[in-house]
Structure formats: structure tokens, C-alpha cells
């Protein structure tokens, strides 16, 4: 029997992988994919607690977040394409114009 702790551990693992990916990778597309991992870690939490408390709101939220993630991916990829057209790069450490 899987307890809530297992789900939370999985979620934590995914979240951590996602955060490390966001912080360490240079390619913006990978960063976006890492963000997806973070979001899905949250989804697992929501669904797990929904099951634990026998309430459906958590699952509804999870579906909202999936939708949101799709939208975010679309917008994010659009920005990346636009940016690539201007600078011919998708490396985050070369996007350093916004500084003093």
C-alpha cells in the first residue's frame, strides 16, 4: 500500500530535478521542460492530497494546472522562437541585456 509519503517523496524528487534543471541548464527549452517537471510535481501533490482527503478540488486544480502548463509552453516557445530570430541563440546565459 502506497502511503501519502511515497507520493510526496516522488513529488519532491521531481520538484528537485526540475529546480536543478532550471538553475543549471543553459538551453531555454530545457529550462522550460524543467518547469514542466516542477508543475507536474505540484500536480502529483494535489492529486495525492485529493485522494487522501477524499475531496475532488485537488484534481480539478490539477487539470487547471495542466491547461496552464500547455498555455505556458505555447507562449514560452513562441518567445523563444522570436528571440532566436533576433539573436540566433537559445542559451539563457547569452540573454544578458537586462542589466545595468
Amino acid at each position: 500500500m502506497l502511503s501519502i509519503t511515497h507520493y510526496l517523496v516522488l513529488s519532491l524528487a521531481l520538484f528537485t530535478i526540475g529546480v536543478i534543471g532550471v538553475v543549471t541548464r543553459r538551453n531555454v527549452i530545457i529550462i522550460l521542460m524543467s518547469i514542466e517537471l516542477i508543475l507536474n510535481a505540484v500536480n502529483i501533490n494535489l492529486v495525492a492530497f485529493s485522494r487522501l482527503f477524499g475531496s475532488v478540488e485537488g484534481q480539478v486544480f490539477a487539470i487547471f494546472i495542466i491547461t496552464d502548463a500547455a498555455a505556458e509552453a505555447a507562449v514560452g516557445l513562441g518567445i523563444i522562437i522570436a528571440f532566436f530570430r533576433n539573436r540566433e541563440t537559445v542559451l539563457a546565459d547569452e540573454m544578458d541585456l537586462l542589466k545595468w
Partner: protein
Amino acid sequence: METHGYFLDHLWMIPLFPAAGALLMFLFGRRLKNAVVSTICVGSVIISFIFAVAAVMSLLAMPAEHRFVEIVLFDWVPAGAMHMTNGALMRFDVPWGVMLDPLNAVMVLVVTGVGMLIHIYSVGYMGHEGGYYRFFGYLNLFMFSMLTLILANNMLLMFVGWEGVGLCSYLLIGFYFLKKSASDAGKKAFVVNRIGDGGFLLGLFLILGTLGTINFHEIGPAIAAGHFPIGAPVMTAIALLLFVGATGKSAQIPLYVWLPDAMEGPTPVSALIHAATMVTAGVYMVTRLNAIFQLSPIAMDVVAIVGATTAIFAASMALVQNDIKRVLAYSTISQLGYMFLGLGVGAFTAGVFHLMTHAFFKALLFLGSGSVIHAMSGEQDMRKMGALFSKIPTTARTFIVATVAIAGIPPLAGFFSKDAILGAAYERSPILWIVGWVTAGMTAFYMFRLVNMTFFGKSRVDHEVEHHIHESPLLMTAPLLVLAVLSIVGGWIGWPESLWGSDHFAHFLSPVIAHYGEEGASVAEKASRGALTMEYLLMLASVLIAATGIALAWRWYISEQERPGKFAARFSGAYRLLEHKYYVDEIYDALFVNRTKDLGTALGSFDRGVIDGAGVNGVGLVTRIISRISMWWDKWIVDGLVNVAARFVGVLSYPTRILQTGKVSGYALMIVAGLIALLGYYLHLVRLPVH
């Protein structure tokens, strides 16, 4: 207001017709066709002439001693109270008014009559010229000014006309303003006239201060009321100042130099302004104020001597001129000198009489010369003419009539008027008579020299010009014929009593001549009482010398043409002196013109050095220094403070600035670190129960 009949009551309208013409030309002339321009401008002068004739007829209908009409239109200069030189207080008001008496009746007829003929002539003469409307606009403006001058009832209004004719003279001499010599001549005329105008104005002020009035018909009574003795110094001063004005306008020594140059203007202008009308304004003015002149024997002598000197001086220059119009110009100066000689010896009526006859024959001579120039395609040099008589017969015949008239051959007009002056001059002083007599001979000589060189002898015309020689159109020859008739009969109204005439002219004018007792009685009257034999002798003498002059001119320029050259070679010094017009222009240049230029240069360098240098540029320099200081203050103190504040903020912001690297991953790391810190803090606060 008492009425004198329509035309006398509407006297003031005479100058207004040409004024309206000039105004129309000024406003719309450019857009009008030449035919319309001629109709308006010639028409206006014809109407003026009709009004003038009608007004003079009405004047003649009045009893001789009451022939004076004055119409005041409005109060022009209501200046108010002023002190006269004798301390009395008087009101000084100048009305805008016109008057008519026998003197200006003669003038107005001459001006409108001759003016009308010259206007008609100009239609033909100027027909192919550019600026047609401008020419006629100026001519009409001139007629307005001249009629204002003549009809004015006071000296100030006369001065308006006096200046107006000067302006028109300037405009018309410089009509071909693209030609430098023409525009220079216009300027010269204007400037020389200004000198005379200064004298006129000073005389006017002195009359006002002394007599308290400048209205012509009040001057006589004011003199009587003031009990001025003959020879009163103030009267001499006034008369001499006014005469300075007259020498300017009427081209007498020393201000005659502008008139020969004025020949740069179109020929009708020379005829109208510089022969028949404007240049006689000085004669008219002296006659008009004869009451003042007669009080000053010194001024009268000056007028007579200047007149006689000018007459012989100008005549001698006319002897050697080769430009057909310049001969006539010097002749005009000479004849004006005659008029002043007449005025100076007290023969005012004779002077005005000569003015009138001269207007006829000199206008005719100028128009005739214009017709010759027209036929010669613009050639003015008599050395390139000759034998034109048969080619332009009407012009030649009328021209010869005028020449005989000016030479003083009876019974043409010039004889009577010249003889009246010479007779009066003899009464005054035989020397003046001799000068006038010699001048008469020279006049006959140079005029017939002109005629012989132009119309007779062998043709010296260029071949190309020769083909185009043609008689002028009827518009031009008709005025010549009318003037020729006037040159013949014009003198007859002054047929002297000694030749069984009745001298209507002198009787007609006598009311305007002042009489001061027996000793001041005009010499002309004394002359009429003088010995008749003497008078016959004088007439015979003047006819003889005229005949001599004519004969000499015939011999030299027709039968023995090598003579003039030999003569000129023998007296080469004198010839060169005459050819260079006594070097008067050069002397004036050296004495006055260049000195004035020097003064201008000196003032200019003062202007540049002191006013511009020390004044304007100095102020500029000071301002620049102040602004330099102000700029330094602005840059280092005002801006400096702002910069210090900015740098202070900049230094303070340095630690936070280094955090903003622009590296997205760096930010993400911070966010994560912050998140962990917050989480840790939160866990630390909550202290979750540990199982």
C-alpha cells in the same frame, strides 16, 4: 461766399483732373491698354485746359482792378498761436486754397496749354516705349504738382507743388532708370534742387516770422502795415533766400548744373518740365513776391546780375555743343537768365512775357528735336545729321519758325519779349544791356548753327539710319504746328506802345506788380516814358546782332564749312574751356561733391570706429565676457551640484547593481535560494511536531 461763376468757383478742380489721372495710373496703369492710358491722361489735361480757359475768361470779364479770386477749401495747418520777430502774437493757420489773378492766369494757361500739346505729342513719341503708363502717370502727377504750385494761395501750399514738380522731374529724368547716366542725372537734379529748396524754406520761415502771414494776398498789406523802408535788411535777406530757391528750380548760376544732364529724360519731358513749365517756377515765384523783392535794391541787383551772367555764360557753352538736346538745354538756361535779368531790373511783366513766349518756342524746339531724334532712330549728335529739311519737312519748318522766334526777329514772339527785357535793362545799366545784347547775338548764332547742321548742308547721316528717316505721325506734328502758330503770334499781345501797339500784356499784369512811390516805380514804366528814339535804336541794335549771328552761322556751317574747325584750332584754349563747360562740373566735384564724400567717409569711419567699435562691439564684448563667466558658473557650480548628487546616488547603488547580472540562471538560483531560506525560516517558526 460770393460767387464768381462756375469755373472760378471750381478753380480748385483744375489740378485735380491730372491728379485723378495719376492716381488711376498708379493703381491700375499696369493692367490698362495703351489706348486707355492715353485717353485718361491726355483727357484729364484737356479737361484741365478747358477749365483753365473758362476760368481765365471769367477773370477777364471782371473789372481790371478786381481781378482776384480766392477759394479756401479747408484749414490745412491749424498751428495756432505764434510770436513774430517783433514780439507780436498772431494766429498761424495755413489754409488749403487756390487763387487766380492775372499773373497765375498767364501761368495756368501756359502750363495747361503747352502741357496739353506735349501730352498729345507724347502719345506718338512714347508709343513704342516700355513703361507707357508709368510715363503718363508721372506726367499727370507733374501737371498736378505744377498747377498746385501756380494756383496756391499761400507759400506753404506753393512749396508742396514746388517739391512735387521736383519729385516728378527726378522721376522723369530717370525714366530710363536702367541707364546709369539717366538715373545719375535724376539724382543730380534732385540733390541740386534740394539746395535751392533749403533757401526757399528759409525764406518762407523768415516771411512768416517777419510779416506773420504767408498768404500771397496778405503779404502786400502786411508789408504796408510794417512800414518797411526800401532796402530793409530783413527784406533783402528774404529776397536773397527766395532767390536761392529760384536759382535751384530755374537753373541759374550757381545751381544750373543739373539742367544739361536732365536731357537724359525722354524728349517730351525736356520740353514740358525742363523748358516750358517747371524751370519757370522760379521766375513765377519771384514775380509773385515782387512786393518783397522791390523793397530790396540789393536783391534786385543780385537777381539782374545773376540772370545776365547766366544768360551769357550758358549761351557761350551752347555755342560748341554737338548734342542737339544739350544745345537746347543751355539755351533754356540762357533764356531763363534773360527772364531773371528782366525781373532784376524791375521789368516783371517783361520777364513773365518772355516766360510765356519762351514756353511756346522752346517747347516747340524740344518737341521738334524729339521729332528729329525720332526720325534719326535715336541719334542725337548733330555731326551725324544734315540735309534733313526735305525728309522731315513739317518738323523742319516748325523748327525754323521757333528758331527765328528765339533769335528775336520781328514780328515773331521772341522779339517782343526779349526786346522788352533789353529795353528795361538798358534803363537800369548799359552794361547789363550789352551783356543781354551779346547774348542775343550768340543765341541767334548757336540756334542757326543747330538748324544748319541738322537740316541743311551735306548729309552726314549713317547709311543704315538714312533708310529709316521718316516724318513723324500726325499726333506729333499737330502739336508742332500749333506751337509754331503760337511762336509767331504769341508775342503780339505784348506789342509795345512804341511800335503803335498797346502792350495788353503789361497792362493785364500790372495789378499784381507792387508800386512803391516814384523812386520805386517799376523801371519798365520809366522806360515807356523814356526817349522813343533810344528805344528804336535798341530794337534796331538787337535785330542787327541777331541778323549778324544768323549770317555768321550761315557762313560757317553752310558756305565755308572748314571755318569752325580752323577757328577752334586757333583759339584751342578757349574752345576746350567751352567744350568742357568751363569745368564747372569738375570744380563742383572737387569743391563740394568730393568734400561731401570725404565727410561721409569720415563719418563712416567714425561710425565704424567709435559707434560700432567702442559702442556696439564693446557692449558685445562685455556681454560675451559676462556670458563666459555665467557659463562657467552654470557648468561647474550648477551642473556640478547636480552631478555630485547623481554620483552620490550612483556610488550608493553600486552594491545592488552588481547583483543584476542579466543571467537568467543566476536569478533562478537566487529565487531558489530565497525559497529555501523562506522555507527554512518558516519551518523554524512552525516547529512541526516531530513524531
